[in-house]
């Protein structure tokens, strides 16, 4: 511990090497370090519009940066140009810390006489990366986030961008990310990748076997749907050092090193760790009631080590009953309340599969417990047990001691299977999706290739499953018990999504944080295992994009109900970026218990600190708060789903991203404000004049 303390102190001092003129270092570096992930995506999208369209009217907007853009496009690369003056000429400079993409809407596209506004706003994207004004940095000294330390630098490295071709520059490795800067273009071409996203690193070409230019180097496979290739010069002998450093910091867990999150010491206004208090959230839902109680039976994580410390359970079940039920449920994950309908008291409870086995074992306690859950809701004399799996899989699980509830044993219960496939199927599907999206898209077979990945098919299954749960609770006032095999993957997707549909609170920014903290983190979705944080076993069969799939589902709902969410897709992308980045402690480790053990709350920063401190950047201007009391039933047919290209295809400049409506809405508000200002000025001016002049007859207008 002491050793680590020293190290981080060292790092902190290291970070002050970075000096910025005019802005306090901490503030500045926050802007850079934190928003980069989000901003990179938007900046790459800005390049995309220009790269494959030869602009016909060069007169549009954004002055000098347009020339640089053509040189600087490509795979998630960021360009810094020298001056920030261009981006904020019209209307006051944007607040620091605002992600550039949101600034863009209000400034750039307003200032240009737009011939075609979407074109201009794309250009706007570009100029918004122009932000770090007059920085006094040497080219190979990238700005670092607090706690970040330069570990190694290799010169004369070539980045082989699949879209714009090779770029020569300097590759630096820090304990947090890799930074590639190419001074070849002006402004310099820059690529920053947090090492957390690295899935595997491979050397390309041997010392004696490599022939031809750029055939000797490394290839980095990332978790965020892209691969990076760097070519080294053999005679520089830089590859070995880079590879070593990369391996060490990309896979700290495999090298017995701490995650970078433990060294990151940014200060935020908001404390993200306090966004979710289990008791407070249960109280918000109206607990305890006469039928539901709050218990701390799992305070020491003894009854169930993957569950949180605080549970809400039927009041009719004693602690002893809970212990007995735990024995009959896989890994002790007993049915615990996720959500209760404020009026009908119909509930969503979640658990793992019952340990029925081949012999068809029964548990009176478990049956009674399910009956208690049903009885807690006076509105209905029936209860649904939603098994997320395909029925074949549920049956097959009997051989492993698991299974599903038989309707004979559980009176008044109806078991339904939701046909969602397991983590291995999902992983394979995402792999196929990546093949289709990256690096190049086969246009002639785009739709059928997309369909062949089955990614959207799986999304549809999850969404319609969640919809069915929400419908049972909302329309039929019936309680639903949800489980899959272990109750931490598909179950988390289903409960969280149906809660999102049913309860408008979860569609606010803090509410969404609570939803993730509660349904995903505290109930033990194995983030470490599924993402493989800091682990070099890239072929680990436990990895699976379950959480990504959930966020995709959220995006699909958001797309269908643009007014019902307080946040925009930018927040979802930021969350996904930091799912991999290991900058924040939020998604580290597998369960609440492990996080307590590792003192994550005290030693790392929460992702919600970033999001809540920069709330304005993620706010959806279209949000209308009265949708909070409504229930969302999204359409789940294939034709109404679409690929989230802003996420999956963001590195691909040929994929044209639609300008989101909320950007145009922001522009509208700005236009309105300007117009009203002008009108007011005119009124005042006239009022002043009329007091001086004698009244005269004004001629008619219009």
């Amino acid at each position, binding site marked *: 511990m002491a050793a680590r303390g020293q190290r981080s102190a060292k790092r902190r001092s290291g970070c002050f090497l970075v000096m910025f003129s005019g802005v306090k270092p901490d503030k500045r570096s926050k802007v850079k370090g934190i928003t980069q992930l989000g901003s990179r995506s938007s900046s790459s999208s800005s390049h995309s519009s220009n790269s494959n369209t030869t602009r016909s009217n060069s007169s549009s907007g954004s002055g000098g940066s347009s020339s640089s853009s053509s040189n600087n496009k490509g795979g998630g690369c960021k360009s810094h140009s020298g001056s920030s003056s261009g981006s904020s000429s019209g209307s006051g400079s944007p607040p620091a810390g605002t992600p550039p993409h949101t600034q863009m809407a209000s400034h750039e596209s307003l200032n240009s006489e*737009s011939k075609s506004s979407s074109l201009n706003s794309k250009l706007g994207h570009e100029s918004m990366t122009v932000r770090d004004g007059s920085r006094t940095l040497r080219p190979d000294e990238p700005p670092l986030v607090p706690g970040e330390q330069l570990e190694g630098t290799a010169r004369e490295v070539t980045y082989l961008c699949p879209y714009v071709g090779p770029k020569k520059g300097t590759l630096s490795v820090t304990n947090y990310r890799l930074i590639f800067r190419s001074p070849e273009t002006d402004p310099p071409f820059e690529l920053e990748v947090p090492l957390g996203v690295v899935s595997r690193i491979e050397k390309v070409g041997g010392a004696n076997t490599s022939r031809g230019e750029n055939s000797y180097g490394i290839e980095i496979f990332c978790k965020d749907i892209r691969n990076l290739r760097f070519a080294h010069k053999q005679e520089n002998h830089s590859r070995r050092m880079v590879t070593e450093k990369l391996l060490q910091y990309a896979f700290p867990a495999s090298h017995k090193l701490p995650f970078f999150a433990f060294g990151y010491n940014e200060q935020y206004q908001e404390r993200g760790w306090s966004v979710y208090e289990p008791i407070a959230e249960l109280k918000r839902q109206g607990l305890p009631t006469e039928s539901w109680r709050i218990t701390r039976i799992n305070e020491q994580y003894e009854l169930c080590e993957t569950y949180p410390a605080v549970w809400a359970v039927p009041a009719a079940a004693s602690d002893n009953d809970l212990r007995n039920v735990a024995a009959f449920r896989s890994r002790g994950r007993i049915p615990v309340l996720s959500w209760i309908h404020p009026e009908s008291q119909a509930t969503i409870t979640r658990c793992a599969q019952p340990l029925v086995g081949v012999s068809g074992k029964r548990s009176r306690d478990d049956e009674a417990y399910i009956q208690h859950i049903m009885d807690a809701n006076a509105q*209905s004399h029936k209860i649904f047990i939603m098994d997320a799996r395909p029925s074949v899989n549920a049956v097959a699980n009997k051989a492993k001691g698991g299974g599903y509830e038989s309707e004979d044993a559980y009176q008044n219960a109806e078991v339904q299977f939701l046909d969602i496939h397991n983590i291995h199927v999902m992983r394979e599907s995402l792999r196929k999706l990546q093949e289709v999206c990256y690096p190049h898209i086969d246009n002639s077979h785009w739709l059928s290739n997309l*369909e062949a990945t089955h990614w959207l098919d799986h999304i549809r299954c999850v969404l319609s499953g969640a919809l069915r749960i929400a419908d049972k609770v909302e329309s039929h006032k019936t309680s639903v018990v949800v489980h899959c095999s272990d109750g931490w993957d598909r179950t988390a997707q289903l409960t969280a999504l149906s809660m999102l549909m049913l309860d408008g609170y979860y569609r606010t920014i803090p509410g969404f944080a609570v939803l993730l903290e509660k349904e995903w983190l505290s109930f033990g979705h194995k983030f470490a295992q599924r993402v493989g944080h800091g682990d070099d076993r890239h072929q680990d069969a436990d990895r699976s994009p379950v959480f990504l799939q959930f966020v995709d589902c959220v995006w699909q709902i958001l797309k269908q*109900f643009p007014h019902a969410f307080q946040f925009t897709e930018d927040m979802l992308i930021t969350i996904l970026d930091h799912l991999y980045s290991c900058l924040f402690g939020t998604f580290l480790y597998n369960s609440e218990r492990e996080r307590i053990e590792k003192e994550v709350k005290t030693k790392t920063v929460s992702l919600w600190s970033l999001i809540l401190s920069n709330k304005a950047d993620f706010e959806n201007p279209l949000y209308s708060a009265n949708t909070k009391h409504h229930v969302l039933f999204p359409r789940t047919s294939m*034709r*109404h789903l679409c690929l989230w290209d802003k996420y999956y295809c963001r590195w691909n400049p040929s994929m044209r991203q639609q300008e989101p409506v909320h950007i145009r809405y922001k522009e509208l508000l700005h236009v309105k404000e*300007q117009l*009203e200002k002008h009108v007011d000025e005119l009124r005042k001016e006239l009022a002043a004049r009329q007091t001086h002049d004698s009244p005269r007859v*004004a001629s008619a207008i219009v």
Partner: protein
Amino acid sequence: MNSHRKGTPSARFTTYIDFEEINDGLTTVGETVPLRPIDVPEETNVDEEKIEPHLLPGEIMIARANNVLKFAPLKANRTGISGTLFVTNFKVSFVTSLPVETKERDMHSRSLQNRFLGVHDVCLSEVDMVNQFSEDSAKKKRLLYNTQMPPRLSGLQLVLKSLRVINFSFKFTPTGEDIRVAQALLHHAFPTSIDHLFLSCGYAPSSPGIPDFCRPADWEHELQRTRCPNWRVSKHNEFFNLCASLPTVLVVPRDLLDAQLEQAAQHFQGTRPPVWCWGTPAGAALVRMAQISPSITDNNDNPVARVPVLALQAASGFLVGRTGWQWAERGLHLALEEGKPSHSRLSVSKSVGSNMKKRKVDEASQQQENRMMGLVHRCHPMRLQPKIFDLDQILPSLKEIQISYIKLRELHTPDDPTQFWEQDRHYFSRLESSRWLSHVSKCLEVAQNAATAILHQNSSVILQDASGCDLSAVISSLVQLLLDPHVRTIRGFHCLIQKEWVALGHPFTKRLGHTRNQVEEQSPVWLLFLDCVYQVSLQHHTALEFTSEYLVALWHAAHCSLHSSFMFNSVSAKYSASDVLQRENPQQPIYLRPVWSWWAENKSIIENEQNGSDEEPLDCKTSAREAFLNVHYIQKLFKSLAISGAVRRISDPLSSAYHTWQHIDCLMGETRQLPYDPATPIVPLQLDGSLRLDTSLSNLRPWLNCFCAWLSEPAMLTLNDSESLLKDSSPASHHWSHIHEMYNTMKDLLSQNLTNGAAQ
């Protein structure tokens, strides 16, 4: 899931009891869904007698069937509504006293034919297919106008051209009425001749406020507006003696004499000479041209040995298509008859690549074609080479478009929820295999190339397709949409369609299958064009003054026989149909109503609709206007007023702010008239660059608004009308409220004459 698993296609039309059983199966929780048709048999006959459809002047009721159940397809709980079904010579009318579904009401309020069609009415020419469900077989069977009728029909399914399916059940209909209705429907929905359709309703239409491009002044106006030099208006087609598919007025090269025009026309298909349709001040013209007629004389000749020059041409193997034609040194040398010294000898060649379809052309026709191209060349002030786009080579054929459309129709008109979900699983690959989007992509690409040629190379573009009135209309319209800001306004778009599609004679009757003849000629070129415009609107949100909703409405409007715009093969066909009608009804005035009149009309012709009579027609209009007007376009207009100083200049008629405000006022104003005054002075064409399109398939989107306009997802859920449920509201509603506020602020300011004072 339950619902669609249990619902088989046959179940719907078996017996009445079955509906109840299905419902019981569905409502597993115990509550019963009230069955609306339950009261049907009890309804008294006295009431039934009173029910009549609303008939327009001249409309005749032909058949009626009582106690019919109407089903929206894909409804899990199978609630039909009962009423009386009428077939008139204009529409299929379903009259019921039961409330209308929200979806139907919405669609009705956003249709351009809601002035004379009620919520439950369907114009006969919209009927695409009629299928029957008979009692003894579960399968549906298509009924044609000459099909032998079975003794009894248990149900009738109408598949409409707007990709909508309506089912009627005759379970409780008195015997005989079902057959009579079906026969009347089949007879009148598929007439042998266009003048058998109900084309005129006896009300004089409001002035559409746009030129119809049948008068010389309209074309002269267009020439002045575009300032395209060296072209002239010819009235040589005054009695359609030159070409039946062209209007009486055409724009031809200035140097072309009428006599030469007549001579040249004979050599083109449909005797249709090349015509100018648009141009730029710099001199680049957009010309549409038919292919030359296949030779009649030398059918027996060996084409290779026939004309040495042609052989030479074929050997030279010019590139076809987007690279256009080239001046060929090895090609034909052709002297133009007029002896202009410097340009008297033009070496012109129509490229004949080896990949071209073998077309038998005789030398004279070839010469005429080359001559016409030479004239287009000479019209260019800088004598730049025109580019030829041989659309038959580079775009899908009409047949292919029709095949795609049929696949598209299959994909969007499922019979029951099972089929819907089965299709939905493979929606993307089926959509791709229909190749519809790839056709759209090709059209956009060609249009983009043509626009680039005009804008950046300043070269004239000749669009050539077989008849000169199908794909050339698509490309020509798109090129203008990309280049001409006027065309992106509603009025400009109306003008464009009137010019390129109506006046220049797109054969709507044939292509949309308004009559039962020439079925093999059907091809929804019009829909293809609208889909292309939809893609433009997607990629450029603020560029078009109208929304994609309006495009959907235009597609639907093309199937209503009272809209004369989309009914005829040509202007001359319209005149002759009008003559026929006038001869048949000498007493009644004949009014052919252009679709654009909708904008000028406030009131519904059907005064008292049985349902929803309490609804204010004006409200309906407002919502339709908001659905048709692109709020982002108006936002762009306001944006230009929000720049500093603009408000101050707003009352100065010479300022751009003044014009912008006039524009906004037209769109938003109380008058609710056409968005423009017909007497608007000529605003010269200002080329301000081209809209850039991304035509790759991965960046095109299926037009769900149109294809799924009537297809709602079959409900998997039992309860859909809960009050707490958030209905998806129009995403533009937020925008509209602010736009209205801004408008009112400005209006308020101007009403106080404040700007006038400030300006002084």
